[in-house]
């Protein structure tokens, strides 16, 4: 596999253009031409389906964590029947280690708005909601301003750009609940309820908001759409890794010199991201472990990283995945027991409690890990933890239970010595 030339990459989602968040600047730089094209160029885009096909061919894999082809998801919407249809944009951004969508809200909100409108037109959606976590008060305000300007510019509302297409666009603020990032929980929250994930089927494309067809996409996913429309599917799919193409907003946090969000192609070597992009390890320490894409993605030991690149195929070979590309980097001083307990605490705190294996399981994981952390664990507790993870997986309404189980299983398996060393010495035969 040829390596990705990331050093010469020019950002397109967050390009180096001053004041791009302002609608005039955005327009001057070709903004809203993609929307104009799909709405008015009937030769190029004879019907909505042609837009969906182009996006499908580009293979924009969902940036919210699951990596599903966006165009393919759009094609699941049933034929329009004259009733309301919805696009719900996911800006809940609450998976620990993830802090990228906020960069779009701040630096290029119109790119996301344009992408959402193209998606909405392609699926004949009548109303778009963007759900933003309540803590992002400043970004909610920024998005609202951008939407107001787009209404004023005739890009949202009635008869958009004289095409006869009508679509509204509203911001909905969350109020503190990680689970509302799960797509059906988000729909419940939009409907004004507690964020309890829904049993599937029916899937949102059939019965989403208020029982009507609804598609859910992550904010970054939609921000990739205008580029695909303007430059073509092939342009997009030639960026980065073949099976997980396109630009990625990598969020890098933890023990590196230059943490932050970097826009680069997919398929970058993990070690380049740490050493060259993020400025290497802080205080000259040695790298110990990396969580590649948010707290639920299985952790990698430093010795597993040779030749591994940031794309689903390569990450799968070491038993992990891309997730949200929110990479958490840990140095040699990191205490794996403490770290894992903190992740378990998070998932326990955020479980909505509907399903017994999740409600009880996340509680047990946290409790047993706390016992080990405090020096009261026994070796058999490690096997108990692994056993609990098995009982949680695949048995619940939503994937939070899996997200809680994976890091526990993988961190214990990959750092078993360290966990055993923390267990009671009387049980562990140390002289």
């Amino acid at each position, binding site marked *: 596999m040829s390596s990705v030339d990331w050093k010469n990459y020019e950002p397109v989602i*967050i390009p180096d253009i*001053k004041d791009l968040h302002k609608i005039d600047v955005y327009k001057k730089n070709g903004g809203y031409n993609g929307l104009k094209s799909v709405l008015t160029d009937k030769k190029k885009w004879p019907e909505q389906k042609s837009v969906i096909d182009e996006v499908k061919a580009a293979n924009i894999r969902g940036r919210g964590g699951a990596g599903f082809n966006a165009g393919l998801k759009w094609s699941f919407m049933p034929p329009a029947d004259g009733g309301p249809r919805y696009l719900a944009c996911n800006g809940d951004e609450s998976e620990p280690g993830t802090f990228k969508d*906020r960069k779009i809200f701040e630096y290029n909100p119109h790119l996301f708005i344009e992408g959402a409108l193209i998606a909405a037109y392609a699926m004949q959606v009548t109303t778009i909601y963007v759900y933003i976590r309540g803590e992002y008060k400043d970004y909610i305000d920024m998005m609202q301003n951008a939407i107001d300007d787009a209404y004023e510019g005739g890009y949202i509302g009635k008869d958009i750009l004289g095409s006869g297409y009508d679509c*509204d666009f509203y911001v*909905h603020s*969350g109020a503190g609940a990680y689970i509302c990032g799960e797509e059906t929980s988000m729909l419940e929250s939009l409907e*004004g309820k507690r964020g309890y994930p829904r049993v599937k089927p029916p899937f949102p494309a059939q019965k989403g908001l208020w029982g009507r067809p609804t598609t859910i996409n992550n904010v970054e996913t939609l921000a990739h759409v205008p580029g695909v429309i303007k430059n073509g599917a092939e342009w997009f799919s030639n960026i980065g890794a073949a099976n997980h193409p396109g630009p990625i907003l990598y969020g890098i946090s*933890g023990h590196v010199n230059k943490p932050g969000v970097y826009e680069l192609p997919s398929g970058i070597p993990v070690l380049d991201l740490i050493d060259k992009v993020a400025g290497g390890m802080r205080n000259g320490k040695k790298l110990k472990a990396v969580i590649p894409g948010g707290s639920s993605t299985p952790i990698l030991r430093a010795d597993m990283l040779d030749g591994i690149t940031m794309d689903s195929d390569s990450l799968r070979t070491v038993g992990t995945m891309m997730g949200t590309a929110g990479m958490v980097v840990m140095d040699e001083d990191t205490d794996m027991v403490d770290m894992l307990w*903190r992740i378990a605490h998070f998932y326990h705190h955020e479980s909505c409690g509907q399903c017994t294996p999740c409600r009880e399981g996340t509680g047990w994981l946290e409790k047993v890990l706390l016992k080990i952390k405090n020096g009261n664990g026994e070796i058999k507790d490690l096997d108990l933890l692994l056993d609990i993870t098995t009982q949680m997986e695949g048995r619940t309404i939503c994937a939070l239970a899996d997200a809680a189980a994976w890091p526990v299983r993988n961190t214990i398996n990959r750092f078993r010595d360290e966990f055993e060393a923390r267990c009671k010495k009387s049980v562990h035969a140390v002289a």
Partner: protein
Amino acid sequence: MAYEFTKEDLEEIEKIKAKYPEVMPATLPVLWVAQKRFGHVDPDVQKLVADTLDLPHSHVHGVASFYTQYYKEEKGKHVLDVCTCLSCQLCGGYDILHYLEEKLGVQKGETTEDGMFTLNEVECLGACGYAPMLQVTNDKYVNHLTKEKVDELIEMLKDGKSPEYEKIGMPQRENI
């Protein structure tokens, strides 16, 4: 205590209702309007929200209690939400939490006697690259915390000033 929305609040609530095909979806945004007005959404405020929207009290109560950002009781004048989640933990989030506990003379979850500060430990706030960090009363993020920066923040809040939005540029970009 009897709470009432102002005329402007009621106008805003009408605008909110127009965004949705039904009234129930207005529950979260109207709870936000109420919290902005009264500083909390205690059971009396929840009742006001329910009556204003003509929804059952039990519904509004259920929603208010599900979401952590709604204050179900009166809090300190300033609420300090310190993140100790994964990336913040790795970068010293607990040191900041403990420093604040010591400095303010309260444990997490408590309010200072003078009613100035409530201190909380919270989950990831989506600022992981700028750890350790905290949020002030559901509003501004204060990033890259050190003890000195915490001292400055507390002084500033005591002086009646609020922190500014901390703009964090893209590390790759020169111009913004």
